[in-house]
């Protein structure tokens, strides 16, 4: 029963991924490729679709994990301040023009910010040998505000092309995607995904509460730390690939649970697949509807995502709030 549903999710995702490669401002017939078509696909569309898929995979999976470790259905990967830390350092880089690594400069500076933000939020959430979910959540909210206000300060006192890029990037900018980013993003995201799926049983137990998780034979502090590391890895990698794209981490895990239940051994991988497909779709819409102007994917996901999320909130039985 749920196997069929999972197959449907996978098939739909593959379909959306292919659509985002072949459709766009210029539709390409995959059965009659011209030389230009090949160039468009291999130089622009395919790397961009892969980056979108990787980012969505990371956001979907880390959202599912984070909602579990925080025991909070409204958690999303950005609530921890990891993304705003990344946004801050990326903007610093963009505005100062101190980019020494070519195409890799922006992802690299973003990753540095995400990395330090993870350590800061993790250490604020740390108490008596473990991460405390409520402390982690509040520390994340506090840090996000701090990082964003410094970011806004930077943007408000600068006035050039760097600012426009920084703003675009904050809302998710996939136009910088090229092949050079993919191996690095792929490795980090697959490592995080593997870590989280390998701890899925522990996450199930943690969702029942720390005491039951302990009673079921799990080391609560150790498991929560490993799961936090997996979230930090995936979020940092995703943000540094293409900016902060909202709502995927929040909504996708809820939709997946609605269809297939709460078992994280299935929820995490299926949220990953669906997150990837959703971002591919959002990117396709963003680059097509107002072509040649591109709408940043983060705005598209939020415009589709927010109303759907509000609708879910109205249907209390879905979220079980």
């Amino acid at each position: 029963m749920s196997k069929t549903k999972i197959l449907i999710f996978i098939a739909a995702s593959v379909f959306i991924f292919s659509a985002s490669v072949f459709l766009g401002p210029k539709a390409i017939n995959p059965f009659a490729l011209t030389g230009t078509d090949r160039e468009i696909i291999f130089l622009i569309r395919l790397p961009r679709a892969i980056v979108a898929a990787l980012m969505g995979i990371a956001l979907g999976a880390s959202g599912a994990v984070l909602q579990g470790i925080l025991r909070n259905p409204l958690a999303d990967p950005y609530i921890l301040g990891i993304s705003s830390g990344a946004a801050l350092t990326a903007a610093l880089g963009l505005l100062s023009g101190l980019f020494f690594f070519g195409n890799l400069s922006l992802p690299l500076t973003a990753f540095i910010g995400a990395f330090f933000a993870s350590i800061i939020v993790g250490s604020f959430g740390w108490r008596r040998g473990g991460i405390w979910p409520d402390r982690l959540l509040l520390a994340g909210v506090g840090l996000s505000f701090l990082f964003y206000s410094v970011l806004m300060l930077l943007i408000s006192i600068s006035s050039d092309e760097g600012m426009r890029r920084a703003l675009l990037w904050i809302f998710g900018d996939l136009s910088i995607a090229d092949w050079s980013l993919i191996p690095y993003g792929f490795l980090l995201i697959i490592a995080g995904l593997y870590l989280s799926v390998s701890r899925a049983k522990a996450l199930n137990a943690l969702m029942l509460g720390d005491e039951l998780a302990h009673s079921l034979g799990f080391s609560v502090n150790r498991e929560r730390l490993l799961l936090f590391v997996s979230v930090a890895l995936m979020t940092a990698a995703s943000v540094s690939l293409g900016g902060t794209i909202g709502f995927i981490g929040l909504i996708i895990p809820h939709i997946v649970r609605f269809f297939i239940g709460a078992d994280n051994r299935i929820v995490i991988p299926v949220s990953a697949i669906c997150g990837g497909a959703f971002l591919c779709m959002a990117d396709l819409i963003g680059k097509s509807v107002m072509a040649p102007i591109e709408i940043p994917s983060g705005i598209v996901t939020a415009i589709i995502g927010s109303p759907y999320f509000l609708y879910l909130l109205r249907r209390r039985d879905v979220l079980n709030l």
Partner: protein
Amino acid sequence: MSLTYSYSRSILEMENVRFSYLKDKKFINNLTFSIGNGEFIGLLGANGSGKSTILKLASGILKPSEGHIKLWGKPLHSFKNKDRAKLLCYLPQLLDINLPFRVAELVNMGLYPYDIPPQITVDEALEMVGLKEISESYITNLSGGERRRTFIAMTLLQGSGILLLDEPLANIDVKYQIEILKLLKELKEKKDISIIMALHDINIALHFEKVMLIKDGRILGFGNPETVLTADLIKEAFDVGIEIRKQESGRAYISYENNF
């Protein structure tokens, strides 16, 4: 370890255990007791008397600041988490799960400590607690009593011989209270499971074989209800004067008659 060999041994022991949540303020003070195999014990005390803390210490969730806790004669904290989980199981008072887990999925989590699953299946466990018909229901749609039974079924899969239950009768109707007490009694008799459960209803405690009366983290009395639940000790434990009466059958019950 064969059950016959260890039948008379104490399975859970506390020796001079001290614990405090805040520094300089002892909460559990010099607690010493020992529980034998197959016992069904009611842990009785007023709110804040330390019942939950004692269960959390016994399950290893909290660590004592002084003293020793032994499980089957071995220090509790020397067990690996998974090995301890096979011997001892704790269910908290609140089972507020707000995620769409199905009953059978939750029960199956009892197998998490095992690499090789034990003999009992999810279906058998659900049959035992009388929830087989609703094994595919979501836990969020169940009543408090059904939830409690779901988690008891989980402990059956977990296969631990010691069950520590924090207020399993709180906030559920009397019908389900009776159901759960019957189920626990059946588990004790059929599966030789030892049970320690916290409760605060004196009338229910009067029906237990053995009662431990707690106040301020100390044991006021431990033994059969007739000797422990005297009017004097109850007054001390609950800070209220009540009268213990006898029914025609000889069973004791408490009366609130002169308190209103």
